[in-house]
């Protein structure tokens, strides 16, 4: 294109301007517009994604780096300008700190207690919602309402339900002759109660994700299965579950990340100083709460930053393990 525009100007001087002379200046304009066009095509996508990356750099990357810098220091919240270099002391101290291992273990147990039943229930719920139901929209919206509730409100209501002396759950259990359970002070009771808040909030959300994936499964597969004599349950196992496998993996990853960062539910469940420490015996202190305790109760920002980095590294480990498992599974298949 650029070559063809340059030819007319090569005509002999003095000769009547060939019909294309005007194109000489037009060629410049065109060249410029070509450049702009290329910039547009090549550059515009970068301009479009730039805001995200700029915000990411400012609010995620910079804090990440700064946090790692802080984690190498001894520094208190009230005197952030006074930093004392301690190298990796915070990390070795964390490694030797039984509170960290306790919190890690609690994070895992609460994570399993909440994620596994949650996803199984979501799968069942999605399967039911996938039937032709009267008022299905209503049920679908209803499934999503817990997710729309704020953590604070939900946790507060559950805290009242699980209250030892006057809570509704102990009252119901007493009808069956079960003695008052001290939900907060018993380790497994507390972890179950907290898991129930998580399950309540996220089951419907996951169910809708599954439902969306289920609706993409072609109807004729079910018909074929039905002709082959498969029962509803067999159809669920043989057609539905394999059909939404990638969505299931996705929700597992999401839930794992959510479980690792669990914070609001146990904090409000404990209320006051006990919430921050995850109970008097740290019986339900998660890593998120340990971070908060170090930073916003003991005001030791260096140690809090160390916990934050430990959580970050933990997520990376989980991610790598998940990829390896996936790859091994794919090879086997």
């Amino acid at each position, binding site marked *: 294109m650029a070559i063809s525009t340059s030819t007319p100007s090569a005509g002999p001087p003095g000769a009547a301007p060939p019909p294309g002379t005007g194109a000489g200046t037009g060629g410049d304009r065109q060249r410029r517009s070509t450049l*702009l*066009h290329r910039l*547009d095509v090549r*550059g*515009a996508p970068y*301009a*479009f994604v*730039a*805001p995200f990356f*700029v*915000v990411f750099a*400012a609010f995620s990357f910079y804090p990440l780096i700064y946090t790692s810098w802080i984690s190498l220091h001894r520094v208190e*919240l*009230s*005197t*952030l*300008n006074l930093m004392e270099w301690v190298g990796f002391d915070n990390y070795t101290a964390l490694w030797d*700190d039984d*509170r960290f291992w306790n919190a890690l273990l609690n994070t895992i147990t609460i994570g399993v207690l909440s994620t596994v039943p949650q996803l199984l229930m979501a799968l069942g719920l999605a399967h039911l919602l996938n039937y032709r139901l009267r008022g299905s929209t209503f049920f679908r919206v209803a499934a999503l309402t817990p997710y729309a509730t704020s953590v604070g409100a939900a946790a507060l209501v559950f*805290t*009242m339900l699980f*209250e*030892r*002396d*006057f809570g509704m759950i102990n009252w119901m259990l007493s009808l069956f002759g079960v003695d008052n359970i*001290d939900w907060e*002070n018993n380790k497994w009771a507390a972890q179950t109660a907290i898991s129930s808040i998580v399950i309540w909030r996220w089951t419907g959300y996951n169910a809708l994700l599954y439902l969306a994936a289920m609706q993409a499964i072609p109807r004729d597969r079910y018909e074929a299965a039905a002709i082959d004599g498969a029962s509803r349950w067999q159809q669920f196992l043989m057609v539905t579950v394999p059909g939404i496998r990638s969505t299931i993996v996705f929700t597992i990853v999401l839930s794992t990340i959510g479980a690792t960062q669990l914070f609001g539910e146990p904090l409000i469940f404990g*209320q*006051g*100083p*006990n919430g*921050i*420490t995850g109970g*008097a*015996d740290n019986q339900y202190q998660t890593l998120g709460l340990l971070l908060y305790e170090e930073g*916003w*109760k*003991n*005001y030791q920002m260096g140690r809090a930053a160390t916990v934050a980095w430990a959580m970050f590294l933990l997520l990376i480990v989980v991610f790598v393990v998940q990829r390896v498992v996936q790859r091994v599974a794919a090879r086997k298949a």
Partner: protein
Amino acid sequence: MDKFRRKSHTRAVAAVSAVSALGLIVSCGGSDSGGTGGGTKDGKVTITMGLFGVMGFKETGLLDTYMKEHPNVVIKADVAGDEQTYYTALQTHLAAGSGLKDVQGIEIGRAKELSDTQQDKFVDLAGVSGTDHFLPWKQSQVTTADKKVIGLGTDIGPMAVCYRKDLFEQAGLPTDREEVAKLWEGDWSKYVDAGKRFKQNSKADKVAFMDTSSGLFNAMIYGNSQQFYDKEGELIYATNPVVKDAWKLASEAATSGLTAKLRQFQPGWDPGLANGTFATAVCPAWMLAHISEKAGPANKGKWDVAKAPKGANWGGSFLGVMEKSPVKKEAQELVAWLTAPEQQAYLFKEIGNFPSSQTALALPEVVDAKSEYFSGAPIGKIFGAAAQEIPDEQVLGRKDGTIKDIFSQGLTLIEAQNKSPEQAWKTTDKRIGKAVG
């Protein structure tokens, strides 16, 4: 043409998004000049306040009264329900140098830390006229080493014992407040003995003698001039006999089943007050408002107040003015007015916050005050006498608030999780090391 327009359109969008992204960064970086929200505009002075809990200034209409008397002043008070949350935010604001109010409330447990580490950020209130009426120990708690005063006192928390007459009666204990006080006169261990008697004779087996052992622990240590720290600022809780004795008695109460295993101001405590699951609570003056509100009108006249075995002070606050405030002068006047004897007496009458002003303590409104809810108990006399017994010197430490919380949790370990007192002490000791180290 059409094509061109479309192209220029995308280009414009790209430019706009790039610019707005830049704008985001810029607006995050540079806008803050560190104001406190207050200022003077069109002859009107705006004073902002950061408060917590029920300090009463907003709740009882004192701020409105002040604004009425000073038509050119507008006060905006921000009240946080929870002191822990409030203090965390205050620390962040102090560190960042932004988000502060003109006037900030200071809880007693934080007074030492603030006067040690942040005194430059507070206005020196030593010279404010008409502020020489405070109890001397109150003022000394916010006075720095070089005699700077970073806050003026609001209330104090002299302690007594609140008890349920009806529950005492059915357990065969006296109900008259004079006789009840004699049960444990002079020694907290007699209070625990009375609890054992209560437990033996009580017909309702679901009713505990006291709400929690940490209330008893607090009352015992706060009656002494040195608690967790000594005057030099060294931690002495592990060797201080005061703390040791309090721990011993509180854990004895916990292991003998005298407590309802509750945590004060947490869920379960409020319905406990309303339904009478415990018969006594060690109560500083400011707790009466909470009890009467949560126990509700149905229990009016069932509660009473008796003198505690030993005078002690739990809690109390201060108001400080920030050095950064553009309306420093007006804010100081406001703080001086709010903490003046008349206002303190008014607050005591309205919500039971006990005055820290010596002058107010002698006013008839305070001396003759009776609580209708608590069976007409002469709370002015009871708490006034308790205030006189509070030691003149109170040594505060930097992490008093945190250490108190950890001790409460340590007692919960014994009370609700069946740990032995020795085990719980070890855990507590280790936690304090972590928290203050």
